[in-house]
């Protein structure tokens, strides 16, 4: 799958983090959208099919974990990557709830890309299985 066909949703209440994802990933031709909280994320997911979502755990209104549960119900194919500052009970629970992985801020671009590749790789296998 070429990057242009990969839709990624970044969900974080921090503007800098959103901008950083957009700048870095768009530079690599990924299609990137952002949401500033769980509620907005859910709205976007209903409207558009995303392949990958990066979810910050600590967010107002609906936190990352709640958002993950909703995503798993309405769009189970989306690979969800949980972002946190350090591993805590929320991250652990998120992985149990079906998150692909968790990464801890601050993370390197390399980590960001590896996790996307991992998500896409699994995605490709899924597609093959389904065929």
């Amino acid at each position: 799958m070429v990057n242009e066909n990969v839709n990624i949703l970044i969900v974080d209440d921090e503007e800098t983090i959103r901008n950083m994802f957009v700048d870095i990933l768009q530079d690599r031709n990924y299609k990137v959208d952002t949401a500033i909280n769980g509620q907005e994320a859910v709205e976007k997911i209903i409207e558009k099919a995303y392949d990958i979502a990066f979810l910050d755990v600590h967010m107002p209104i609906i936190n990352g974990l709640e958002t993950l549960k909703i995503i798993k119900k309405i769009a189970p194919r989306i690979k969800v990557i949980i972002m946190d500052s350090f591993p805590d009970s929320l991250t652990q629970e998120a992985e149990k709830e079906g998150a692909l992985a968790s990464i801890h801020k601050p993370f390197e671009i390399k980590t960001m890309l590896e996790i996307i590749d991992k998500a896409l790789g699994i995605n490709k296998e899924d597609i093959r299985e389904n065929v």
Partner: protein
Amino acid sequence: MGENILVVDDDKLLLQTIKNLLEKEKYSVTAVDNSNKALELIKQNFYPLIILDVRMPDMDGMELLKRIRDIQENSHTSTIIVITGYADENVPIKAIKYGASDYIMKPFDITEFLYSVNKNMRIARLEMEKIKYIGEIANKNKELERALEELRKTKEKLEEYNCSLEQKVEERAKELNELQVQLFQSAKMAAIGQLGAGVAHELNNPLGGILGYAQFILEKFKKKDFKEEDIRACQKYIETIEKEAIRCKKIVENLLRFSRRPITFKKESANINNVVEDTISLIHHQLKIKNINVITNLQPNLPKVPLVINQIQQVLTNLILNAQQAMPNGGELKISTSKLLNSEKTPSNYIKIEVTDTGVGIPEENLPKIFDPFFTTKDKEKGTGLGLSIAYQIIQEHRGNIEVKSKVGEGSTFTILIPVEEE
């Protein structure tokens, strides 16, 4: 029996006559016929009245008078009547000069004699009274001196005690002070523990941006076709890096200021709004993720107040954390500052800080207890119950006041007043 009279005369007949006469008048009488015996007796007993003949073979009457006075000195003086047979007018004068109070010329008539004795006895009695009083006064004086001495000793002891008391008080105060510092510190550490996760998020978000953008810029530099637009993009990224680095710096500075153990509780003139803003910046993220909407209403141009800044930060942090814990499902936290002008109720100008939440509120029965040390309604891990008691002490040390108004189900408002000028 009446008072004792000593009669001294070598004329035994006259002596007996006088004795009989006086005894009839109900006096008790000691009669002796020579001067030496008289002196012996006077040395041993006190006679209020002495009647003596001036001319006796063993000793001149004047000499006897002198010796009596020598024996008796000033304290115990007998009244003395001299009997004289001399026609010499000088004798009575001389006798009186030597201390006699009256004289009787021989031959004398009984009425005249008794009149003189009675009159002189009255004088003697008065003399005795006087002596008694003087004695009593002397005794009283002694008692008084003793009492004074006691008093002085007591005073000394008191002073000593006072001194050791002062020392003890000082020692206790020092101990307490140390304890308090420890208490402040431990409560602060607990607050930092509660802050810990929040601070990590607070720092890791800007750091995430910094790291990402720094690596992104490096990537761009390595590209061969580095274009004009890349330079512009990089400039934007570097600006973001700078902004986020400054944010990190502020957080770290705040945290350090807050956690530093104060060596002295030194006040510095400070703008309360800055203190409020710095405190909020430490907790802001934590509040946001708990769905707490922070509204600040800081009145500009407030006068500076003398503050121990990290103590006030500690107070505010505790109030904010309490508010946060009172709103487990989110809510609104309002922090406002304003100036309170002096009025009848408040003698000086005050800075007012209000922290209002829309949380669970405090039941009326708990209101009098919340400022008590170790009063908590929270789990052991969440609360030590020290937060508000320490806040109270800190505000007291700033000569200020902290109060609470609360309604169960509606929320709570904590109001802090700090006087603008320190006398």
